[in-house]
């Protein structure tokens, strides 16, 4: 069993609110420099920079997991992280089918799609900052349908969190974990695992919060086991 340092919530320049300098290779480089073993790239409602980050991380020793930060109809942000490209892209298709509107780069920021060298290969024109038409339960169900882990994002924040939008965590929702982005103690519930991550939108934030996992390898399957505390896998506090 290995101890891996993971920051499972990092944005790239695909997110309109993230810095332009957050190119996939730069995110990978900064991830390594800050001592991380594993990152998850989770842009708002899109995964179009995941492949570039994964490619940029080849042979670097940093593992990259693909995900999205999906916004539910109630404007609750949920991280979905996935085992492979097919699952991720299938989930992205459902998100896109339920996301209305076009981005206004002047108002919300640019949404750059890049290759592994950090060159711009396109712009995403969807309103990624917007909310999907999916209810929170449907977001969680969609993530699970494609074998992903559903993690309520930044539950300690006053905006776009399950706590700010609903005021509580509905029992039976089926979350795999909740995420906190500060050093504050999380709103504890016995049956819910807690992770810490940075929600980095800027370079200096990468790895500023992280979770240490005791797992065999840096995969979604192993992380899922650690969150459920089975077969010796667990998070370390």
């Amino acid at each position: 069993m290995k101890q891996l340092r993971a920051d499972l919530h990092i944005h790239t320049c695909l997110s309109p609110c993230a810095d332009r300098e957050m190119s996939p290779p730069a995110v990978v480089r900064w991830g390594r420099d800050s001592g991380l073993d594993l990152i998850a790239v989770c842009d708002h409602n899109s995964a179009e920079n995941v492949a570039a980050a994964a490619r940029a991380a080849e042979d670097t020793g940093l593992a990259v997991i693909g995900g999205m930060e999906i916004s539910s109809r109630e404007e609750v942000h949920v991280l979905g992280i996935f085992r492979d490209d097919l699952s991720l892209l299938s989930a992205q298709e459902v998100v896109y089918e339920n996301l209305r509107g076009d981005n206004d780069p002047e108002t919300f920021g640019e949404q750059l799609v890049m290759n592994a060298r950090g060159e711009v290969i396109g712009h995403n024109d969807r309103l990624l900052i917007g909310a999907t038409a999916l209810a929170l339960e449907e977001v969680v169900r969609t993530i699970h349908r494609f074998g992903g882990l559903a993690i309520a994002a930044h539950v300690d924040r006053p905006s776009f969190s399950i706590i700010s939008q609903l005021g509580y965590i509905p029992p039976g929702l089926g979350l795999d974990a909740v995420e906190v982005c500060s050093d504050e103690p999380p709103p504890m519930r016995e049956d819910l695992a807690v992770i810490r991550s940075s929600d980095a939108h800027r370079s200096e934030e990468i790895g500023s919060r992280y979770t240490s996992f005791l797992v065999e390898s840096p995969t979604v399957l192993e992380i899922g086991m650690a969150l459920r505390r089975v077969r010796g896998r667990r998070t370390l506090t």
Partner: protein
Amino acid sequence: MNLSDVVQKLGLEVLAGQGALTAEVRGGYASDLLSDVIAHGREGDLWVTLQTHMNIVAVASMKDMAGIVLVNGRRPEADTLQKAGMENVVLLVSMLPTFELVGRLYRLGLSGERT
């Protein structure tokens, strides 16, 4: 009616957008979901909300709304305030909860309907 009338009559605190207080208020909209305001907010509306995130400024600006009123004495995040200042978006605070504030706005003659 312009914004400064509303500010004065309801005792609102002006946090940003002082330069735009002469703007006419044409109606009102109350909602705490940004996506709902993107869909239904109109030009010239005064937007009543409890959300304090920076994106409220972007939404109000995109929809050319007259301004934003935060309810219950809520304070915006620092970057919200900064962005509102930079973009000259009127950001106001009321100590009243939404129901009370909207009632008083309505009594002043503002409506959610447009004729």
